[in-house]
């Protein structure tokens, strides 16, 4: 199938090729730029191009591949670094140097590397699509390999293989490949979804204690620039209690990614002691890389995340930032001259987002294991204004909303999570877990903590009029305790040892503060002046 380019507008190209299907992958122009069909018409199609379209000419050829945008899933994804199209960035660098000039097909997986395959099924066994047939050791994990289709195994290897060699055969002669190819826009199947019931410990006291997240849940944190979104995302990527982290740098800064890569290769996972990079997959599409690939990057990432979920692992997808993805969508939509919705975003923004969010969850996989896929996504509202369409669309679907506050950030209170506006819908369903598994005091202490913060807010207004000295002793004590709570408990310096706080530490810290308050309040009643107690 070969056609020709009829028109070019930004990242989209119209072509006269017939017989394409929607979301088919195509190669465009002499430079063989990768693209995807996004609209079909009577006499042709419109294609979005994942690479820079500069220099593309009218009449250049276009070729259909006959299949949608897919990723190759197999051993070797962990500690990998990919662009939005699942091309290995390291390999791109080997091939064309420090700058990405485009038009190059590079595979995400290393086809030459040998893996030791241990079968879990025997010759003659009947397998269903999605059923696990064996595993390889990939870093700290067992990487389970499942069959792509139904059949009866006639041959299965027990030894070394590389990705482009089959690991066995079916009786009807079909080969069993060691990898899985999956279209990124299609959710991977599972047996059934389960409600989230376990917490996702992030190591951030404010989140774990006040706004707990659930494994299989979704959370967003919107914040203007300088509110520490990226630092928070990266801290969670480092310390979250999950097996695998997929991190998407979606339309963000290149220098930040360089920093992150360097840190992740040296830092250790606090839960297992292994190098962080061994459990991490990076998908990087910085802001100056082509926008259409930015649009695809979150799908590429979530497909890899689902792949590991299907092996029964707890996977966390972090994206920084979802707003850049939405902007890419808007850019493509406007080059298609679609009727815009709010602020120029396409009207299908909310439905695309909810489709994406619903790919999170705790599931019983096809092979009967329990795996989870959680999502924590940052949102960058323009001007720090939360009434904009992306934040609002996310609010309707996300399970937790962690609002990053510019005024807290200006006071260098990090993570700058506003404790009055934020919420977590998982709080109630996780309450039992915290009471039983961590401490029976957990929920009561949380209530106390909230009360102190609320009381402080009310007193602050009074203090602004009468001054701190004009307050009663009990109120002054509360202000002092609240300050302690903010400085020592809710804020955490990401550059010190305090960056990671396991639940035990969180608990003992809050207990200490609440006890200090109670003791002081008691002695205040006994008549000991506040000044004296504060000196101690």
């Amino acid at each position: 199938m070969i056609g020709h380019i009829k028109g070019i507008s930004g990242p989209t190209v119209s072509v006269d090729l017939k017989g394409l299907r929607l979301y088919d992958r195509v190669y465009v122009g002499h430079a063989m730029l990768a693209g995807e069909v996004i609209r079909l018409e009577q006499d042709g199609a419109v294609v979005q191009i994942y690479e820079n379209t500069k220099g593309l000419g009218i009449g250049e050829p276009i070729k259909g591949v006959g299949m949608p945008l897919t990723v190759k899933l197999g051993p070797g994804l962990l500690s990998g670094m990919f662009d939005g199209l699942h091309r290995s960035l390291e390999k791109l660098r080997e091939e064309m140097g420090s700058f990405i000039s485009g038009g190059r097909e590079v595979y995400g997986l290393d086809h030459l590397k040998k893996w030791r395959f241990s079968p879990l099924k025997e010759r003659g066994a009947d397998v269903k699509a999605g059923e696990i047939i064996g595993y390889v050791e990939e870093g700290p994990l067992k990487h389970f390999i499942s069959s792509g289709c139904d059949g009866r195994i006639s041959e299965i290897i027990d030894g070394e293989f590389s990705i482009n060699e089959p690991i066995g055969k079916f009786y009807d002669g079909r080969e069993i490949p060691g990898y899985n190819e999956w279209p990124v826009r299609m959710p991977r199947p599972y047996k059934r979804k389960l409600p989230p019931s376990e917490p996702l410990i992030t190591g951030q006291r404010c989140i774990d204690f006040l706004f707990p997240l659930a494994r299989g849940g979704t959370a967003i944190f919107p914040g203007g620039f300088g509110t520490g979104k990226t630092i928070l995302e990266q801290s969670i990527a480092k310390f979250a209690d999950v097996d695998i982290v997929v991190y998407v740098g979606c339309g963000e800064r290149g220098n930040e990614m360089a920093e992150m890569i360097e840190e992740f290769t040296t830092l250790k996972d606090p839960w297992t002691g292994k190098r962080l990079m061994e459990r991490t997959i990076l998908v990087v599409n910085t802001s100056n890389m082509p926008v259409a690939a930015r649009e695809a990057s979150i799908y590429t990432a979530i497909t890899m995340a689902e792949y590991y979920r299907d092996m029964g692992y707890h996977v966390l997808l972090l994206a920084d930032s979802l707003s850049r993805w939405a902007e890419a969508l808007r850019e493509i939509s406007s080059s298609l001259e679609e009727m815009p919705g709010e602020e120029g975003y396409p009207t299908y923004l909310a439905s695309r987002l909810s489709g994406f969010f619903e790919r999170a969850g705790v599931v019983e996989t096809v092979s009967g294991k329990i795996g989870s896929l959680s999502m924590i996504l940052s949102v960058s509202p323009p001007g720090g204004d939360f009434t904009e369409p992306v934040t609002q669309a996310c609010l309707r679907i996300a399970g937790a909303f962690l609002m990053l506050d510019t005024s807290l950030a200006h006071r260098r209170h990090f993570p700058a999570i506003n404790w009055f506006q934020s919420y977590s819908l998982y709080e109630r369903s996780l309450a039992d877990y915290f009471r039983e598994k961590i401490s029976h005091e957990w929920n009561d202490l949380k209530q106390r903590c909230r009360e102190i913060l609320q009381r402080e807010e009310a007193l602050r207004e009074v203090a602004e009029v009468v001054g701190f000295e004009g307050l009663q002793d009990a109120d002054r004590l509360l202000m002092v305790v609240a300050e302690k709570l903010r400085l020592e408990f809710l804020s955490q310096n990401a550059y010190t040892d305090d960056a990671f706080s396991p639940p035990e530490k969180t608990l003992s810290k809050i207990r200490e503060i609440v006890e200090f308050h109670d003791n002081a309040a008691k002695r205040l009643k006994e008549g000991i002046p506040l000044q004296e107690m504060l000196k101690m």
Partner: protein
Amino acid sequence: MRLSEHIYRTISSIRGPLLFVEKVFSARLGEVVNILFPDGRSMDGEVLKIDGDTVLIQVYGETRGLDIGNSSVVFTDTVKKAPLSIDIIGRVFNGSFLPVDDVPMFIPEKWASVTGFPMNPSARARPEEFIETGFSCIDGLNTLVKGQKLPIFSCAGLPSKELAAGILQNSRLAVGMGRFVVVFVALGLTFHDYSFYMNVLNEIRTGFVAFVNMADEPVVERLLSPRFGLTVAEYLAFERGMDVLVVITDMTNYCDVLREVSTAREELPGRRGYPGYMYSDLASIYERAGRVKGMSGSVTMIPIVTMPEDDITHPIPDLTGYITEGQIVLSRELHQKGIFPPVDVLPSLSRLMQRGIGECHTRGDHRKIANSLYKYYAKGRDLRRLEAIVGKDGMTDSDKHMLDFADIFEREFVNQGTARRDINETIDRGISILKRFSLEI
């Protein structure tokens, strides 16, 4: 490759800086065209959009005098390229890359596409080498490092150009023997500012390259000049191993042209009429700052943004702040107090500072001193609000103490006039102020 030159006289409409040409046989996106005026003048343009045989062209110049019928358009079959050579150092060009310093054009060693290619994120080296700008408020509290992009957010009437000039004159790398070169890009500069900057540039010993688009010169050139500047910067940094500091003033003018072209194209406007792709467009400029693994050079960028209506949430500073690694915010209040540079350190931020300070970069106690100064100053500033309500007399002694600290901090630490302070002096000054107020460090 086309064998013959394609000339068309089929202009169908002219709309501000945009032309529609019909019945074009084979055009390319981003192709450079040459527009021949009826009076014999010629001008460059670029293909923006192609729809069948109708081509939309953006003209890099004033379209006055262009007509339908007699004017013609020549398609050149190449994308916009910039000539490069080491001899470029010391030269001044206009927004079309023509020399304006009365010296003939240099002989190019090579040509490179002006849009450049995105740097592979895995090839980026982490920026961590300290650049000493000589200003306490930057070096001490918002440290600049090699490969960073740190904009100055200014307001109309504030001395952003004096600050930029100070940085140009005083910047020094604490370590490293590499050559330090300045690339200066001016967009819509008034003659007054132009003569000011040229005086400054001519005094820089290490050398500079300037691209100057004056306020009365074609506005569409402003879309090109920063890209010329950065192409030159990348060449000097990554092929010649130099440390390049790029100063672009003023990005607000750039964004206004972007909006002008977008409206002429009848695109859907985003916030305040700026196009929806402004984030990506700005990123294609700002993200060219950086360092590459295994190469000695670096591109550091200081764009200057004038915030319309002093509003930091205006789309231009807002999107800039989302892309750059921090910001230096100037304050009208400090300027009125006679403080120079009038940098408000509270909303200012350098995201890469944490890596660039400490034992092996600046001084072991740098972080501690910076944090303390910041903390106490923030406290003092908070109390100023209280002071406005209850008056200074109604406040406690400890509150008054903090208020005094904030004043002294502004007058003695931030304020330094045109004198240069090295990093030791900056930190020592911080320590002495903290000690004077017997504050814990």
